[in-house]
């Protein structure tokens, strides 16, 4: 029974994955792909928080730090180097490294939930102010002007490694992003199935018991956090490449809260929920921006309140329990 269900889940994941990577780019128009690319970029970011918070139990209010750092690193490096391979790798490694340092700072002193949230939020805002204060020609790294609140415009796109002139844009960028999303999703799933993954979940479930069994909670959390940082960094790189710009807005409170909302809407403690929550919220915002039915804030705000009151645990867990309820009702009726 269980075995079948696991197989079914795997099959479903493969089906969704191949639809994303193969079918959609074949049928969708270029501007639709362009828009979907952003959703998928954000979905990767949502996955990073879903992993760090939903599985690692780390309430991080500064996931945008790693996203933004990834974007800035990529932008600065690619403007200087003119070839995107090294910048892409740097854009993943640097955020992971920062997450490592921050993690050492946080986890080696037992800092509890809300305090951790505040510290990560504060770090994010420090980045916001510092990048914001970089207007003017004095602030440059190599040939890249930081640009203050305006950010860095005209960031070159990703290219095929070794071929700076073969750029990955529009449809190609979509496919690349979809593959990355699938890889991150599959990678995190795979990681959760290993003994390391079990320890991660065990720590979330009962930190003290895990310690009493001899697991070093600090180093495990550090690893979780660094992996989350790397994934967020990747998302940031793709974001900068997608929009050809990056600005301090990515470090702002609004953006950082948005990531939390994606994860919560989908349901904390699931990976697929983060992806679905993110795509739904972003699609709703885009739709409101196009149709202007009503003030975006008004509609979205009301929707969140209603969602919480009627599907407390988020959409995916909510749907799951709804389905389970239906199934048992059907079964008992039979």
């Amino acid at each position, binding site marked *: 029974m269980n075995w079948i269900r696991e197989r079914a889940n795997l099959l479903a994941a493969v089906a969704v994955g191949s639809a994303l990577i193969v079918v959609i780019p074949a049928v969708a128009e270029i501007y639709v792909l362009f828009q979907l690319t952003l959703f998928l970029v954000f979905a990767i970011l949502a996955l990073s928080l879903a992993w760090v918070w939903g599985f690692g139990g780390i309430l991080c209010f500064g996931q945008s730090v790693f996203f933004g750092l990834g974007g800035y690193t990529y932008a600065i490096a690619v403007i200087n180097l003119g070839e995107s391979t090294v910048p892409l790798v740097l854009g993943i490694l640097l955020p992971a490294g920062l997450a490592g340092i921050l993690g050492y700072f946080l986890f080696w002193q037992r800092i509890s939930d809300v305090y951790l949230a505040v510290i990560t939020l504060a770090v994010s805002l420090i980045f916001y102010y510092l990048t914001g204060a970089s207007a003017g020609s004095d602030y440059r790294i190599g040939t890249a002007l930081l640009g203050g609140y305006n950010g860095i415009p005209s960031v070159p796109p990703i290219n095929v490694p070794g071929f700076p002139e073969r750029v990955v844009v529009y449809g190609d960028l979509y496919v690349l992003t979809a593959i990355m999303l699938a890889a991150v999703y599959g990678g995190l799933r795979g990681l959760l199935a290993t003994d390391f993954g079990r320890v991660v979940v065990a720590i979330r*479930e009962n930190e003290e018991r895990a310690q009493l*069994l001899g697991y070093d909670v600090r180093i495990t959390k550090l690893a979780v956090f660094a992996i989350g940082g790397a994934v967020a960094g990747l998302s940031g790189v793709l974001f900068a490449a997608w929009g050809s710009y990056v600005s301090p807005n990515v470090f702002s409170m609004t953006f950082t809260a948005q990531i939390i909302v994606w994860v919560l809407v989908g349901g904390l403690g699931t990976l697929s929920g983060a992806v679905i929550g993110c795509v739904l919220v972003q699609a709703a915002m885009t739709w409101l921006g196009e149709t202007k039915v009503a003030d975006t804030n008004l509609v979205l705000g009301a929707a969140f309140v209603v969602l919480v009151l009627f599907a407390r645990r988020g959409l995916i867990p909510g749907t799951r329990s709804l389905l389970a309820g239906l199934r048992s009702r059907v079964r008992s009726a039979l």
Partner: protein
Amino acid sequence: MTQAPLLETIALTKRFGGVTAIDRVDFRVDAGELRCLIGPNGAGKSTFFRCLTGQFRPTGGQVRLSGRDITGAATHAIARKGVSIKTQIPALFDGLSVAENVRLATRKAGNRMARTRKTEEILTITGLSSHASQMAGTLPHGQRQWLELGLVMAGSPALMLLDEPTAGMTRQEVARTAELVRSLAEDHTIIAVEHDLQFVQMVADAVTVFHQGQILAEGPADAVLADRRVREVYLGQPPASDRC
């Protein structure tokens, strides 16, 4: 000079603000012993345990394991040195299955195969094989106690600390637990905190009585339980076996 005891505390002290929970306790347990700690609520038994596992950082004094100072070491480091504890209220990974819970405790067993074997072995011993894929959070109380005992066993620890292993169990379950603990004592060193004096009599070689953060009496079970001061301390307390 004989070999160092497996566990030794020297003037171990723990204060919370103005309250002294553990007051200069000198305590030793030799390898292979099964020792029971008794004493009224608030005597400092659980705090003492928490100082041993590193969950509390002692205010003063020393904890030595096989002669090596482990005072103030991190909990996981002490656990890796072979100290394992069953806590008063079973601490489990509620969102994981019974089998996963046990598997997590088998980190010392070696490779994947060995861990799987060990997991199955423990599930059999604790009689939880049929619940292997059930979520630990959905187990009834008695089985939670057994599962946690299973976690402790799975690590093959040098020293087992059992904090009220029979709390909330039926008479029958207590007898089974006593049997299990006795069989474990054959190749483990065990310190158990217990209120149930019948259980203590069933299993213990020696008993240490805690009172107001200090050791009140220590010695063979029968002798200590017959001690007048010990009876006074317990006076007014209903026998633990009737408490639930």
